[in-house]
């Protein structure tokens, strides 16, 4: 009998989904940590509501999802589908053509530039390449938002910087006076997380937090993000290609398809249990 490529691909996807399910089962303790805690009916902290955005070509079309208090929403999808753009909309670095983005129930799309700066102080952002300021030391990088937006004195700032560095498993005495160029990729990411959380933000945003890292460092960063959620109960939105990390840390997953729409929004378990062909192809490709 001739080998049927369609059937072979379907078999591969089934085995991939089974492997992912096994991993989810193994990661059960971590998943326990990511569940939102507190009130019985948590409020929506981040809401993206029927958002449309186009430059020369469409970037996002009718995109809607929400992240409840303490929840972690992961946005996954192929390259160029507009995942990072959603983070820029939440930060109000971009304004949608249509639709609303609400933070704590407040529509931020109509804010002025100065009002948007105030809203951004509620958020911490971890960039793909960490985006640490080259001209500043690690200490100055983490202290920057504290100097800009708080009345803390030098001793309080140093204590906060030390606390955040210890939180991300870095030795303050060793790294505080180093410049970003002297750090490894994983250390830069950890300093980026420390800077993002310096102000104790209500919301954390991560753009590809594990890209370009080796498997061990990826596991470390994933564990740090989980620790941040568990200990500080922040609401998080994560953009990532790393499906395994996403399934470990996310309460909900939003899948952006090539038509720039969200084709799936639900729990990781619902995603792996889906019979949708695009989802299965995506999971198969992402885990290959």
């Amino acid at each position, binding site marked *: 009998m001739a080998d049927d490529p369609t059937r072979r691909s379907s078999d591969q996807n089934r085995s991939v989904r089974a492997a992912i399910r096994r991993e989810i089962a193994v990661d059960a303790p971590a998943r326990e940590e990511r569940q939102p805690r507190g009130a019985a009916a948590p409020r929506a902290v981040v809401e993206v509501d029927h958002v449309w955005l186009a430059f020369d070509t469409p970037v996002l079309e009718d995109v809607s999802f929400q992240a409840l208090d303490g929840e972690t929403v992961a946005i996954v999808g192929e390259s160029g589908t507009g995942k990072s753009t959603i983070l820029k909309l939440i*930060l109000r670095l971009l304004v949608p053509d249509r639709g609303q983005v609400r933070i704590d129930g407040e529509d931020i799309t109509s804010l002025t530039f100065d009002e948007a700066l105030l809203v*951004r102080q509620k*958020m911490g952002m971890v960039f793909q*390449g960490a*985006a*640490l300021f*080259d001209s500043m030391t690690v200490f100055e990088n983490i202290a920057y*938002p504290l100097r800009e937006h708080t009345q803390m004195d030098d001793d309080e700032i140093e204590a906060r910087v030390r606390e955040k560095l210890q939180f991300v498993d870095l030795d303050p005495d060793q790294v505080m006076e180093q410049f970003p160029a002297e750090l490894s990729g994983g250390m830069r990411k950890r300093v980026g997380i420390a*800077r993002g959380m310096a102000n104790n933000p209500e919301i954390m945003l991560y753009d590809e937090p594990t890209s370009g890292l080796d498997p061990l460092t990826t596991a470390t960063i994933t564990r740090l993000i989980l620790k941040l959620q568990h200990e500080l109960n922040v609401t998080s939105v994560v953009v990532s290609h790393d499906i395994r990390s996403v399934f470990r840390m996310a309460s909900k997953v939003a899948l952006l398809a090539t038509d720039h729409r969200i084709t799936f929004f639900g729990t990781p378990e619902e995603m792996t249990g889906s019979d949708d062909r695009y989802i299965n192809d995506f999971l198969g490709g992402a885990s290959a």
Partner: protein
Amino acid sequence: MPELLIRLNDAAKSRVLTLQEYFVLAGKSLRFIFARPFYAQDVVQQMDEIGVKSLGIVLLTGVFTGMVLALQSSVQLKTFGATMYIGNLVSASMIRELGPVLAGLMVAGRVGSGIAAQLGSMRVTEQIDALNTLGTDPIKKLVTPRVLAALVMLPVLTIINDFIGIIGGNIIASFVVGVPTTQYWRTVWNQIAADGFTLRYIPNDFVQGLSKPFVFGALISITACYFGLGTTGGTEGVGQATTRTVVTASILILIVDYFITQLLLSVLTYGR
């Protein structure tokens, strides 16, 4: 034909938009000089970067320009037996034109390219976005200190350039042409006095020579910040931003110099 018109229309709109963005950036950066928070430490750092670190090339440019000016003019003046007027020629040329323009061109090359490369790298490595997300206006933090520092330091560099250029002329006048130093400096002062005064005490040459670097400082810093902040396309984009900055700032200096000269010559009363 309609296709051509559409393209021309698009190109014209794009140019107008560029100009609008340039002037919006210029307006904001100047307005933020008077708005809190003040980044005094950044301003001092930029003054060091723009002023102190440019001193070397400005001194070299000034002294050799003054020397070659004296050398060339001595050849012509000798045919009329008027070599004692070398000081007039060197001082007028240096203070009115060569001092400000050469200092401007040197700073455009050294500092303009540096600013564009630094801000361009910050743009492509998302550091500008990081500033925004940390609740800081990048124009206030990055552009205003550079513009303010350039506005202060370029006139200072020009004064030094003028002075060192006149000293360069003195060296040639004394050691090559044989004009005594006292005679040289007397003719330098005679020239400055002969060109008249503004508000009775400020020599017209100084007004002309110091109003230009002030404008050049703004042009260089705003052009560099504009191209730096607008960088796209990774490291290649940084290179392009740097080149555009040096070319645009240099051309703008030469064009604006002509118009300032024209304006000041019609406003200032020379020779009275």
